């Protein structure tokens, strides 16, 4: 027994005397909430991080008072280097605290950066144990630093704005993991949301504006080659079976106004078909909608009218998808709609031959649509106002 007491004592002594090798007190941490990546003119990487500044210093009660006001409590710091890790070291020198990357949930990459390729630098985020796989990735129209430097009035920080924007799923939502998967995918293309600053209102400070997502960037082999607007983005979302929220406004042929509908549920199934050398793809869409506005004099309780509306809706979606395909297949030649993976899954043997010149072959895929639209409810008031 004496021996075990001695062992316990030695263990305690070892622990207490030498211990706490990996301890990181929160007081010594700089919590990074957002990251912006830019390329300088000399070709260096400019890493800007948004750091939460703990407001607890001294006067606590005062802090409690205006916490509801959305007071901005972040600071920015920039480092430069030849690689991301190099830039980080530069950044480290400028910071009094250790950086904590695990809460960097928004990563903004500038367009200029994306055009030179993001694959190499992405490696850092994957390899480093801290950043989250669920961080959202954005491409900024201008400098990424400007996006992250904004001081929004509604949210606590600009990165929070970005996160909320992505989570609303109106347009693209791409996490670090999604991006990795897209980069590894068969087609080698990826699509990322693009953010821009909304124009400044009069009487407000330069930074007091918000960013918003309006376009989507298209990348091939990790390099940005172009972008598509919001309508086309929704089309891409339809193809990718990622549509969550969309308001579609149609004008049925015999009607005198527009009817708007909100999507309750949309589901897309891609059915590939290889017929000799010809590639065919059937896009099967089922959607359930809900009327939210009716400008016409139609009474939507009439079954006939409702069917006409459904037909118009299906046609509208088909039109939009055709438009999207036009751009994607002919102009960008980037398979961001996920056809490659479908072909691989269905025809693993034949696919090996097709894979080599998929870029060319993608443009030749014949697409047929099979859209089934259903209007489930017609809102609370059914008669025209």
């Amino acid at each position, binding site marked *: 027994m004496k021996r*075990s007491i001695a062992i316990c004592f030695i263990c305690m002594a070892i622990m207490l005397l030498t*211990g*706490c090798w990996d301890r990181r*007190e*929160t007081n010594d941490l700089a*919590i990074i909430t957002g990251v912006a990546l830019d390329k300088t003119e000399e070709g260096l990487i400019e890493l800007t991080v948004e750091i939460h500044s703990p407001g607890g210093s*001294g006067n606590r009660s005062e802090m409690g008072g205006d916490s509801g006001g959305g007071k901005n409590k972040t600071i920015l710091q920039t480092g430069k280097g030849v690689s991301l890790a190099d830039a980080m070291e530069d950044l480290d020198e400028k910071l009094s605290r250790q950086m904590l990357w*695990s*809460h960097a949930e928004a990563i903004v990459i500038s367009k200029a950066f994306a055009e030179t390729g993001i694959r190499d630098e992405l490696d850092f985020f994957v390899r480093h144990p*801290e950043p989250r796989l669920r961080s959202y990735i954005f491409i900024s129209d201008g400098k990424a630093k400007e996006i992250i430097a904004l001081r929004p009035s509604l949210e606590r920080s600009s990165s929070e704005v970005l996160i909320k924007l992505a989570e609303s799923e109106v347009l693209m939502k791409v996490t670090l993991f999604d991006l990795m998967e897209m980069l590894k995918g068969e087609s080698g293309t990826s699509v990322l949301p693009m953010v821009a600053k909304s124009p400044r209102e009069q009487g407000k400070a330069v930074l007091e504006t918000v960013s918003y997502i309006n376009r989507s960037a298209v990348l091939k082999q990790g390099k940005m080659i172009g972008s598509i607007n919001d309508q086309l983005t929704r089309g891409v979302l339809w193809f990718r079976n990622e549509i969550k929220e969309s308001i579609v406004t149609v004008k049925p042929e015999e009607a005198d106004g527009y009817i708007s509908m909100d999507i309750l549920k949309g589901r897309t199934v891609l059915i590939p078909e290889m017929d000799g050398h010809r590639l065919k793809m059937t896009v099967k869409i089922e959607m359930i909608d809900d009327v939210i506005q009716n400008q016409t004099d139609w009474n939507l309780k009439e079954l006939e009218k409702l069917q006409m509306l459904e037909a118009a809706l299906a046609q509208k979606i088909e039109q939009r998808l055709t438009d999207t395909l036009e751009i994607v297949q002919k102009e960008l030649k980037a398979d961001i709609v996920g056809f490659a993976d479908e072909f691989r899954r269905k025809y693993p043997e034949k696919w090996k031959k097709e894979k080599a010149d998929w870029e060319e072959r993608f443009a030749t895929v014949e697409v047929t649509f099979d859209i089934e639209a259903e209007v489930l409810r017609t809102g609370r008031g059914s008669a025209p106002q």
Partner: protein
Amino acid sequence: MRVFYRKRVKLKKNNRDQHNDAQHLKPLYSDLEQNLEMLHMLYDDCSDVVFRSFLIAGKTKAQLIYIKGMANIEEMDSNVLTPLMNNAEYSAINAKSLIEQKLSVAEVTKLESFNACIEQLSIGNPILLLENEQQGYALGLAKWEKRSIEEPTGELVVRGPREGFTETVEVNTSLLRRKIRSPQLKMKSLKLGRYTQTTIILAYIEDLANETLLEEMTQRLSRIDIDGILESGYIEELIQDHSYSPFPQVLITERPDTAVSSLLEGRVVLIIDGTPFALIAPTTFFALFQSAEDHYHNFMISTATRWLRYLFCLISLLLPSLYVAIITYHQEMVPTTLLLTMIDSREVVPFPALIEALLMEITFEGLREAGLRLPKQVGAAVSIVGALVIGQAAVDAGLVSDHMVMVVAITGIASFTVPRYNLAIPIRMLRFPIMLLAGTFGLVGIMTGLLAIMTHLSTLRSFGVPYLTPIAPMKGKDMKDTLIRAPLWKLNTRPHFTGDYNEYRQAADQKPDFDKGGEE
């Protein structure tokens, strides 16, 4: 070393035996004077022993001896002294007929040795010595101040009997006997303690309690040779299997219903004179989580409360450590918004989180201990002062963070959900080493600490029964009263300890189902 130790023990035993023999194992003399001389010598300087000499019917010399405050004086006057002294027709000097005819006392015991005299006197019974008699008589007229039966304060229940054991062994045995009327409830009596000569009752139910368990228990009790036994804790420490363990290996209870339910499960109950706490053996870790009323409430509610207790036991063991580990090692686990507020509140705290936690936990333990010792009138005030003022002031002074205060408060409350105080204490104690581990290795340390505790628990046994039964070793049948509290009509079997046992405790298939049969 060991041999030497044995020898010493033997030596001691001899001493003790001599001590016994020399003094009072002698039989009584037939001469009253000699007897009195002996007793006077034994009770030299004992001012509380009263020797009252009188003449029976004015002829025979007699002596009544009793201890002040332990005998019923009124009864002695009216039922012993009056009939004996006033009996004019008394002629025959026959003690037997005298007692049969004149003494209106229910319990009269013959005494043949000084040893017996002392024993009876010490219980409070007056003894009557007559001239030319080689026997004395102990009269069952003991009466001393005892506490009445009250509700046990340590084990409160919402539903269930409100009576608790008292300090008097006779009262306690009567409480048991009132619940188990069967003569199969056996109560063996033995006396322990060289000076205190404390009565210990070994209660068990014949055929339910395992023979080997009984033997083991008797053997362990007989090994005890100690000056005095003041509380059940003395016995507990001397009979438990593993001395170097903070965990209780014997269950203690103040409640007769708990004792009875244990008896019915085939356990053995030890009732010790002078304390309201009875010992129950064997016990298992999970039995310590059961409260008496688990079987009185609806089984679903009892199951839920039981799980609540398990959960809060874990919280009370781990919460401060988890907080320390997460805030110093695993910040990435905290959702962003929460982390930011935590950081804001911790920003002004000058200590590392571990020190902060230790500081608060030790303060809390001190507060709890103080609360126990303080006079009742001050107690409430101090706990309010402690909880509110110290907590709030510490936060305001920037010594600890808000979150830490909350963690400590929750931990404090959690430790009181464990129904047994003697289990709650080791859990509280073990919190500190785990906190140190958490402060050094983060979650890895916590896990290591937990595994160490689990290893320790699996090596424990209580009277041969593995401490973690029925979880490890697994006994599926017994889990119905551990993981859940199964409905009463499902609890058909007794928990199994070791060896053969009387398996079924009730008739099978008693689920109330009134469609099955009944009226016509």
